[in-house]
């Protein structure tokens, strides 16, 4: 079968870090990178020229996992993270977004998933933007340094808040939210009453919510307004 060759190639590439440029150029000055930012994906780009389906499949093989783990830092749930990433790929295919990617697919995909995770959280914490408007928000065109920094700031903040929860409460929260397990299940495993588990979950959620409040109040409102105007 002729399709086997690119697939095997991609799996082996996945096992070792495949972005060769960044490995080789760790000691070079940034300016030398300017010339070939796209080189790392040259192979995939070639595939897209002849077979977009195969190209998307390769991108999925390369980036699905790191994108999921990245999204999970924001949304703190495997299930939600995987849904968000799958959504990014489905939209990427359905709208032929790959035709308009100017830089690397990697940058596009990561920007998209960060944006979606952000919107997901914003929706969850302030029900101001609708789920649909979150779906509409794709990778930002020009990404400003300041906003790139905000993403890191955001998931660091979430991590810190989770870390500061009392140990038992943290454990329950992670089982409930990150692993999507049922309150009853958790109660059984930790030998707690369901009520206690629920109290822990509510406590953790309200801590997160109030911790993120100032972040959303302004930003979510503007996002929402902007989604009408553009």
């Amino acid at each position, binding site marked *: 079968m002729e399709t086997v060759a690119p697939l095997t190639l991609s799996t082996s590439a996945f096992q070792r*870090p495949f*972005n060769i*440029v*960044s490995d080789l150029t*760790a000691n070079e*000055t*940034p*300016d030398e*990178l*300017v010339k070939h*930012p*796209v080189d790392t994906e040259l192979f995939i780009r070639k595939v897209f020229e002849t077979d977009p389906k195969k190209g*998307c*499949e390769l991108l*999925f*093989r390369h980036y*699905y*996992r*790191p994108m999921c*783990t*990245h999204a*999970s830092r924001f949304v703190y749930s495997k299930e939600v993270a*995987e849904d968000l990433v*799958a959504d990014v790929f*489905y*939209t*990427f*295919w*359905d*709208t*032929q977004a790959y035709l*308009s990617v100017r*830089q*690397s697919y*990697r*940058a596009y995909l*990561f920007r998209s998933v960060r944006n979606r995770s952000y919107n997901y959280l914003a929706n969850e914490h302030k*029900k101001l933007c*609708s789920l*649909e408007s979150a*779906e*509409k*928000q*794709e990778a*930002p*065109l*020009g990404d*400003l*340094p*300041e*906003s*790139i*920094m905000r993403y*890191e700031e955001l998931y660091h903040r979430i991590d810190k808040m989770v870390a500061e929860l009392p140990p038992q409460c943290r454990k329950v929260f992670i089982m409930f939210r990150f692993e999507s397990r049922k309150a009853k299940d958790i109660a059984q495993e930790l030998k707690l009453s369901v009520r206690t588990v629920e109290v822990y979950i509510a406590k953790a959620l309200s801590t997160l919510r109030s911790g993120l409040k100032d972040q959303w109040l*302004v*930003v979510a409102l*503007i996002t929402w*307004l*902007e989604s009408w*105007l553009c």
Partner: protein
Amino acid sequence: MLPAIDKQLLFDHFADKTTPLQKRQIEEWLGSEANREQFYAWLSEWEQQNASYLPALEEPLQRFVDHMNRVPSGSADVDAGKLRPLEGVAQRRGARSPWGWLAAASVLVGGLFLGWQYQETILYKTYQTVYGETKPVLLSDGSRVFLQANSLLRVPRFGFSERSREVWLKGEAGFVVTHTDNNLKFQVKTDKSFDVVVHGTEFTVNTRSYRANVMLRKGKVQVNCNLGKTQNQIFLKPGDLVSLEQPNRPQIQHQIKPQVYEQWKERRFVFDNMSLQAFGQLLTENYGLSVTISDSAIAQRTLVGSFRADNVDELLELVAEIFDLKVTRDGNTVRLSEVD
């Protein structure tokens, strides 16, 4: 001259181990596009080395490939994937100047104008499925809707579940409606000559031309048929199915097996004496295939039973096997004929 920003520093940054001063340097470094490229390359590499868990790959990949095989690329409205800068959002909210107010005023005027232009988009949220796609929708009152393929649901953005609960449906959908404290009615409006009024139940509505019907699973439902000037009200009991092909002569069947109308929950297809001809219509409406059947004797044969199939090809294959027919598929045209 900036101090060198290297992979190690960025890795520290991703792991929240940088000082505010280093953060400031990184922010400045991000000013160039090539550096931003590098940023995402390192981010991806860091995620691979510091994964918080190991996501399964093969199964979601298979689903994605299936999706690509089913839905042609470019089938979605490009607007839906329109690039929308988030950046505009978070920028400089500290800076205020008279120009800011002027800008705000013009944005407001512009907003009013656009609002008037796009009333429909603003007042209603639309969920739509393409051929072969199903979509679960959660409404703000907690009610759930399972939108079937090639269907459209419109929900008001404002005031939903406050004064009234009204949605518009074209196509086919299953509803699980929650009960509200103030006993608010839930109404499904259709472009056919009937509407559905409910009070906390599970039911399906189908507005497709060849089998407009309403099927009730639990609770109480009232169907209003509009017959010119008069309105005919029908009350349903669980298990009832009203067919409304001819609105002036609605037909009620009792004790239908509900699962026939619940294919949306899993990819299981249940057929209860469905003719091959009707099966062809089902394929047309759900998958956009045009189906021809070589002779009318075959078209009259009926299907009974339930089948599990992940995609339309599998389903076709199954049906062909059962009836010992030959399936020829050419793009969106399917031909069912007798094996020679």
